[in-house]
């Protein structure tokens, strides 16, 4: 069936099997392979995209459900020549090793900073009435849906803290 998707500021019209996930629509049909498939079951976070500014596991949602949504993938944050501050911070802090979970970590981190900026509490937020402040514990809690088997976690947290200092608003 036909679907038109708005991805990284461009419209793409696809004729796809309705069973196609948003992730596979990007990877198999649009050559947008920045978002990774690590489990296809929402267990690893490698496929994280922003849909209307919020984090989503793109393997757990069908492409045809997103006709009127604004979708951002890692390719939409910045390019190799013009990196988003979060991407640059990951390079600076060695916040990756094999690089496969990295796009998901980066997109998730950008979305996560947006959630903190909007005052969303988490399990480790000390007092939900007084708002949420960025801290190592908040980052670790909120990023725990993004697995990294190389285990770059300490450097990822450092990268996010650095990027948070440079960007107040999510992309």
């Amino acid at each position, binding site marked *: 069936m036909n679907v038109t998707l708005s991805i990284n500021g461009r419209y793409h019209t696809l004729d796809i099997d309705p069973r*196609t996930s948003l992730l596979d629509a990007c990877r198999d049909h649009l050559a947008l*392979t920045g978002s990774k498939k690590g489990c296809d079951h929402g267990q690893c976070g490698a496929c994280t995209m922003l849909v209307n500014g919020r984090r989503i596991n793109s393997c757990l949602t069908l492409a045809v459900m997103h006709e009127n949504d604004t979708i951002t993938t890692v390719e939409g944050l910045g390019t190799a020549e013009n*990196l988003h501050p979060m991407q640059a911070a990951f390079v600076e802090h060695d916040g990756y*090793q*094999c*690089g496969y979970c990295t796009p998901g970590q980066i997109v998730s981190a950008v979305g996560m900073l947006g959630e903190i900026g909007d005052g969303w509490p988490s399990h480790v937020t000390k007092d939900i009435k007084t708002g949420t402040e960025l801290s190592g514990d908040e980052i*670790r809690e909120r*990023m725990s849906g993004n697995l*990294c*088997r190389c285990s770059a976690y300490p450097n990822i947290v450092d990268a996010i803290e650095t990027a948070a200092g440079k960007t107040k608003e999510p992309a």
Partner: protein
Amino acid sequence: MNKHVMDEAIGETRLDRNTQGVIGKGAPRYEGKLKVSGTAPYAYEHLGGEDVAYGFIVPASIARGKIRSVDTSAAEAVPGVLKVISGEKIVRAASQPMAPAAQTIDGEVFHYNQPVAVVIADTFEVARHASKLVKVEYSETEGRFDITNRHTVREPDSMPMTPNQSRGDFEHAFAEAEVQFDQTYTTPSYQAAAMEPHATTAKWDGNHLTVWTSHQLLETAPGQIAKHTGIDEDKITVHSPYIGGGFGSKLGLGPDAVMAANATIAIGKPVKIALTRQNVFQATSRRGETIQRVRIGATKAGKITCFAHETDTTNSPGNGFFEPSGISSLFLYPGKDRIIAHNIVETDVLMTSAVRAPGEATGMLATESALDELAETLGIDPVEFRRMNEPEVNPQDDRPFSSRRLMECIDEGAKRFGWSDRPEKPASRREGEWLIGYGMSSASRKNDLMPSAAEIEMSSDGRATVRTGMTDIGTGTYTILQQIAAEMLGLPLDMVDVELGDSRFAASSGSGGSWGANSAGSSVYVASLALIRELASRLDADAETLTLKDGHAIFGNKQIPLPDILKGETISVTGKIEPGKQAEETHQASYGAHFCEVGVNVVTGETRIRRLLTVGAAGRILNEKTATSQCYGGQIWGIGYALEEDLVIDKRNGLIVNHDLAEYHVPVHADVPALEVVLLEDRDPHASPLAGKGIGELAIAGVGAAITNAIYNACGVRIRDYPATLDKVLAGLPDDYLTAA
């Protein structure tokens, strides 16, 4: 080809002179911008925009038996299905590292969810759907799933080490020992669980087969694919420029590569097969579960007199690889009378193979716990107990150590960590619901140098390109090869390019066994020296004293830009490193120490890591940033092995129960506090021309035991059956902890 055989210890080199000043520095990764922007292409991601087909595997629904029939008619009737492949072209699992080929199924089922067939279709969705319509009938036979049953016990192959090595008369020495320590430890099976599931894109153009696959050890890949397809090896090219993690699981060729290669030949258009996460858990390989008996004889004063480490582990029929848990016990602790032994208990479960630090990762969970227990029995601090038992030569064969800085690592760690503040008695320090404890362990990882070759091409503008069939599995190979070439040739980093992961390039060591940086890096060193000789001859200068810096050759009182020497020409040289007498004359290993502080919750039994410090000595560090990242990885795997990871095999039917990332628990961000890694300034002139040693697997060695030793110190519960999940800890806690303030 320019060859260096490591027969002599290396003297001062251009790396020591550090004229360009780039070696060892924490340079950002060469390929970093591609990775963070999502534009580094992994195996599945090639041929974007081309008309390709997709494959989906049909798994067996029994653990052992014969395949009576495979009915593909319903699947083939689905519009969009192009082919269903079954029979002799299907493989059981990945191949073993360096094996000539993977094992084919030959009409049998050897383990639960073994591949039986693969469906090829126009889209992934159709292939997945049709795979459910393939009807397979079996004649099921009884399987063996439990290591403790020891139905079939056999001696392992001599890969990755000679399995049984004894010295003297251990039984006699142990019987005579003043203090006898005898405990058994168990470790479960583990999955490497690299983030990128094994994947392949294969394209047959009627004459040549091109395969992009996620593979650590490219050298043997074309030959393996040739055996499985019948295509001549010289008509096969294999690419693996980016690999989404391997940890040993991609040392063997994945089943996806064999199936995609056969499928593209069968249908005449490119085929992509990415294993599902469930396939990765059930159709590649895993680390074998172990039962390890550790016996140590000692004097009352604390001197170890004899040492025995005997391991049962598992593998499937036809596989001789074994988890060599005793690999560090060969040399770490003294005793003239010793037994290091391994048995394979054959089981009908997915084959076992290499996972990060085969041997050390499981063996040191046992021995480093044993040292802690014995130290306590003797009333000696664990740090001092290790000092008292530091051997002067390798206790197995009296060879000298090339360099052994274990005690320096331990002492540096103890000082930085504040070990003197350790609670003296278990369960003596409490903060509210949390009991606090410290633990430590030694770390060691045997060092190997492997044959490896690289080409360096210098174009007329003075730019250098390094090409080798080597891979980068996240370890930092691109970056360290760039740094070595830049330092040797006196070039700024941005004047050096690195191309990896192409089977047409010079054959390399591949990424495994922590030998990659040292072996591939040494080949770049050798090629660089050859290039310097070529430049010097063009200048009529002495290569030894020719200084290269910032793209200029400096000698006498002259400074000449490289393009003026090259005069429009491109120079290409190849260098090769080979292991030599140094590997026989000296015993080589990297060393380290871990210090950990945990909190154990008295209500839930949950353990939280509060602090974790690793100090390592692994020869020259080529890039302090990527080396430190490797150590973080080892530490965090250690957290997983101590507290979480446990690949559960259903002993009734052989099913790997927790075959995905929801149920097989790897550490997540919230499990990992800020960590500390310290790398000692070190050189090992016997190990390689770089004077470096392996580091990728050092930091996982022993770290889990530092954690369980800290758990014991915190709450008095000794975990010998890994992992230390809260149910096991809680069962050992006395009830009065709950009521005590």
